[in-house]
């Protein structure tokens, strides 16, 4: 009786999680997609006369202006472009490399497995910030470099995850029978193994998109990220830091944007994990 009620409440909560996640992520994606139409000047136009206008006082600048008189609302929306670009591209890159590496080393074992996994061990032992600062000191900041850095530092997670799944799947009957009737390796890898392990990878992806948006913000905040001229959430946070006490809106609104995006993605990821988990309570 109580168990059923609990389960029903849990399901309702799960639905709410899904709806909120979709609303937040979808809303932000839409705003970013249409940002060029909404703000044709890209939030780049400076107006030194109107610097640090408080929010909700001027209809032209609903969320106020920053120290150079640029519209905070426009920059927050435009800033989403960079953040989502970094989040999605870096995860996509890391997934492609990580999944291939994981499949190969898990399926073939032996020499390549050893090489890839020892390499992964070394990489996991390096703290991210150390890697980031060294990398950026050598090749410099910028959007492309930051995406490469995130790919380099994160493919290992996918490789490990995929390799583990492959190890447990490769001795199962359906794989063995496929091998027995002479299916080519590439087919076994892509047709039989990949679909069976992609669930957790997708979940990790959603969580990492959120994580990478935060990393992009931290790196830009430290002055190691993208061009300060291009609006980005981390950069706006950093710009607003010295004004926190007398012009909170410069950093609070981009901070809020980060919060909502990451929350939305995490909710979606959470929901996805529960839906894809075959042993979970919400299985249908």
């Amino acid at each position: 009786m109580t168990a059923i009620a609990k389960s029903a409440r849990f399901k309702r909560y799960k639905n709410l999680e899904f709806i909120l996640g979709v609303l937040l992520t979808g809303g932000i994606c839409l705003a970013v997609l249409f940002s060029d139409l909404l703000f044709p000047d890209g939030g780049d136009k400076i107006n030194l006369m109107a610097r640090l206008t408080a929010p909700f006082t001027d209809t032209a600048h609903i969320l106020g202006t920053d120290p150079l008189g640029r519209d905070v609302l426009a920059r927050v929306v435009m800033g989403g472009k960079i953040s989502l670009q970094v989040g999605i591209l870096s995860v996509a890159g890391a997934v492609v490399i990580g999944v291939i590496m994981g499949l190969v080393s898990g399926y073939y074992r032996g020499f390549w497995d050893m090489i890839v996994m020892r390499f992964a061990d070394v990489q996991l032992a390096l703290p991210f910030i150390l890697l980031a600062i060294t990398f950026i000191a050598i090749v410099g900041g910028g959007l492309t470099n930051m995406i490469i850095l995130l790919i380099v530092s994160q493919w290992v997670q996918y490789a490990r995850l995929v390799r583990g799944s492959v190890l447990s799947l490769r001795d199962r009957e359906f794989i063995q029978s496929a091998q027995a009737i002479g299916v080519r390796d590439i087919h076994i890898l892509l047709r039989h193994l990949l679909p069976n392990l992609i669930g957790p990878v997708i979940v990790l992806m959603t969580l990492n998109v959120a994580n990478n948006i935060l990393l992009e913000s931290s790196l830009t905040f430290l002055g190691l990220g993208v061009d300060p001229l291009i609006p980005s959430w981390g950069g706006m946070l950093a710009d607003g830091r010295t004004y926190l006490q007398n012009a909170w809106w410069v950093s609070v609104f981009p901070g809020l944007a980060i919060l909502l995006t990451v929350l939305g993605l995490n909710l979606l990821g959470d929901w996805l994990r529960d839906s894809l988990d075959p042993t979970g309570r919400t299985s249908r």
Partner: protein
Amino acid sequence: MIKQGMRTALMALALAGGMMASAPAHAEGTLTVSSPQDPGSWDPVDTFLVNWASVATNIYDGLTYRGPDTKLVPGLATSWEVLDDGLRIRFALREGVTFHNGEPFNADAVKFTFDRLMGEEGKKGPQRSNYAAIDNVEVIDDYTVDMHLTQPDPVLLTKLAGYGAMIVPPKYIAENGEDYFNAHPVGTGPFKFVSYEPKVGIKLEAYDGFWGDQAKISDLEYRFISEPSTAVAELQAGRVDLVIPPTIPIGMIPTIEEDPNIQVVTTASPTVYALRFNTANGITKDERVRKAMIYGVDRKAIIDAVLGGQASEIVSFQGELSFGYDPSLEPLPYDPNKAKELLAEAGVAPGANVQINIRGNDSTFNEVAQAVASYLQIIGLNATIKPYETNVLLNDIIPQGKTGEMFQQSWGGWTLDFDNTAYFMYHTGEKWNPYDSDPKMDELLESQRAITDQAKREEILREIANYAADRALEMPLYNLNAIFGLSNRVKNFTPVPDSRLRLNEVSVD
């Protein structure tokens, strides 16, 4: 109960006794200073950081002294005489001065100091090259020395007031060794060293045997706080009495001004900022393009808005305090139409790229650079900003000539002599001049180094400033004030332009 009372009485007695024993006749109170940087060594020959001087000016003396008014006055030398066409300077030394360890100050200490600076120990540090003109010091008698020079150095007397020329105790260093001296400095200044904790702070106390004006406070403590918001928060909380530059960003000034217990004190400083041009590659190779970019940026508006009036516009790469400053030199006005004309004339297509390299950690300049880039976009250039980690920018990107079209240069020669700036910026082959080689400029720069006639030198230095402006070697931006955050309990504080802060006049409530 009775026991309790007894103990309290005893404690009160002990406390009173302790207070009586430690109460000095004059100095009272502790002043806590927030400094952004720990120089790591307190040895005068080891450093070139201005924040070394904000502490060490209280510990050491030089032969000459230059205070907040930037006038050169006697220090450990009571008088001097320039002889042999500037190749020999005779110093009469102050008598009755002792180092903090009791060692007497005399001609031997002076000779030891400069032998050390110009010898093996000095070679390890960055200070030696500033004093390259010194050949040797000859002891005439206990309180007279002759300084022999290999060539005249018109700025030497100023340089003797700070940094590498601070007089150090010979016997103390011989007995304790160089490494010990790095962390346990001894000089003749108004405060003596108590303790030093790397990366945390250094504590000094008033030195009763100081030859000049006795300190008005008993203890002077420095804390190394690099994060501006932390320093300001500590100032607001009353745990720090004075925040010295370069710490407080312009954006935080209103925060301090709104607090009734603390205030902002500023003074003109030698620190100047410019965006220098890559004169060897890209579109900025063309002088017309460089001028167009200067015409195209409303520097005045940037200074008024972004820098809140805490900076003044410059025309050459020096401020008003600098020797060689030419008041008659006029800035190029803000004229976007003229800028576009010049760009068209030089054949620059709209949308040409201009990359600006800046230091990643300088929040104020970051804003300035963004404003400059926006102005450049208005005249049709596609400006981008690339921030670098400060060390990478200063030690790799600029010296190796790997910058974009423009790069940030901030400079603050404490000697307030334009030679100290211009020679390093414009002479062929200097570290800070990776791009330009101009025989006429080299000749001008070298000619003023060899003469001691200050009027003639000033004329040449002004000519250099005019010539550099004429060739538009940099986009001159502004001369930033030295900005101090000060608690109201501090009295009689005079802001210094160059971080060489001496606090013996200051008292606290």
